[in-house]
């Protein structure tokens, strides 16, 4: 089911979670994000919207409460330098190929790997408020955020 993270992705997700927690140490408040807002926005979302096929997602993002605080890469790349660029290149390759060949399923569905990255990104910013509902053990089963917060994922 697309609705949430399958058990198979849990291992990788756990690792990502760990990384996300690592980088959030000593942070974890909205103030920080607001303060650094400008630098986040240098990850220009227009780069993504260059592809008309990304247009809907761009539009939905632009109307969402998140557009003031998070750009595409905040949700779609890991909050860790190495993984960020690894992911960017993997996705860049994949999307360009798909776009050129036109050979992809519509509507577009996020891949399991990218979804895990995004779910970790939610926690990166919202750990404070959701810590009680996350599993006590690293490697425990995490709850999918977008199962309930569908609208955050550009939902029409």
């Amino acid at each position: 089911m697309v609705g949430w993270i399958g058990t198979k992705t849990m291992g990788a997700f756990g690792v990502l979670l760990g990384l996300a927690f690592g980088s959030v140490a000593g942070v974890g408040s909205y103030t920080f994000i607001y303060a650094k807002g400008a630098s986040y926005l240098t990850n220009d979302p227009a780069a993504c919207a260059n592809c008309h096929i990304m247009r809907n997602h761009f539009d939905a993002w632009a109307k969402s409460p998140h557009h003031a605080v998070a750009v595409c890469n905040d949700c779609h790349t890991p909050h860790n330098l190495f993984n960020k660029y690894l992911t960017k290149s993997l996705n860049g390759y994949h999307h360009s190929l798909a776009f050129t060949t036109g050979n992809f399923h519509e509507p577009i569905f996020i891949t399991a790997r990218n979804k895990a990255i995004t779910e970790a990104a939610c926690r990166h910013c919202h750990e404070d408020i959701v810590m009680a509902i996350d599993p006590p053990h690293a490697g425990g089963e995490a709850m999918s955020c977008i199962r309930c917060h569908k609208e955050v994922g550009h939902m029409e």
Partner: protein
Amino acid sequence: MNIFERKVEARNPFFRVVELTDETDSPAIWGKNFPLQYDLYKRTTDMQRTRFGGSEAVLRMPTEADPRTEVAQSRLEADPRLKTMWAGYAFSVDFREERGHAFMLDDQTFTERQQFAKQPGTCIHCHASVYVPYKKLGNGDLMKGFEIMNQMPYAEARKLVTHPVSCIDCHDPETMSLRITRPGFLEAVKLYKNDPNYDVNTQATRQEMRSFVCGQCHVEYYFKGPEKRLTYPWFDGIKADQILAYYDEQGFKDWVHAETGAPMLKAQHPEFEMWNQGIHARSGVACADCHMPYTRVGGLKISDHHVRSPLLNINNACQKCHDFPEAEMKARAESIQANFFSMRDTAMNSLMALIDDIKAAKAAGAVDARLEAPRQAQRHASFLIDFVEAENSTGFHAPHEASRLLLLANDTIRQGQLALRETPAAAAPAATAVEPAAPATTPAAPPAMPAP
């Protein structure tokens, strides 16, 4: 963002190759300006089955009377109980699965029902591009042309039309916006809106129009009064039991049942009425959202004018709103349909039992007075079952409403069968000297439904 504010997809650039007027009814001409829509429109000749819908091509030997080499599968053969249900009526002779819009004119012209009884020109209202012919016949007056064609015999009226439903039947040639052209709906939508002054073409929202253009034809109708005026029976409401109440008030019947003598009613394709009762209508989802979803052709998003079963096109038709895999969406629709199908089966068997009962009683010489209640039960139950059976989504458009109607039908049959067995005092079966209890009495008043 929600489904109500449907986005106008990347502006549709088109080249005005030809000038379209309010008299252009040939789709090929419109197709010069809108080749993408036209190409898809032509594909309504495709025949492909889904588990419960779509259609299947059955080869036949063409005859002089009926030159078709392919027809859709017979529904009477698939379920012979329908013949008994409609005994004595044209539908018991020929009734087929409906198929794509391209076939509508031929299928009407050549159905064997035409042989069974002379049909009026009225029929053409929903089976041809009739907007321009109506206007011509009425000297520019649509309603007048409609009334004139209604009075013609079918064969004569048939000569006045050429195309199945065409661009001009749904679109304004100048603005390309949707437009209602059917007199039947222009009148009935006032009842639907409960506003005698409602003018659908100026007052409806765009999203409403995306269903109303279909509601022009995909509705229950009858021929009213001696002049057989085409009428959508929405005077008491559009639910099946409200329509039934209206027919009862009018004392209307479609035919007399050949086996039981009951005054019968036939329901036809109430897709619009049933859709209205469902969760999708309630959520603002229009016919066109599922049956003409946006589809990407090259870099453009256009409405898929290949009108067909959405289950042949799940990614565009369903997945824009439902975040589940294609196979799962198919399984969900089919599970609703299978559940409906099994309920319909139960009700249908009950109906056959009632018909058998009345037939037997009649054969045994029962007088009309004694048959009155059972025959009314047959009339009512048969109409309710027919309503959800004739509705072509196999329950999908409004599963809860369909269930309600089937239970109502089944219970009506139960009471009809008991009424037939309710005998004047002392006529209880001698063998056991059972005193039959009055049917359906309740020891106490049923509880009031809690107020909303």
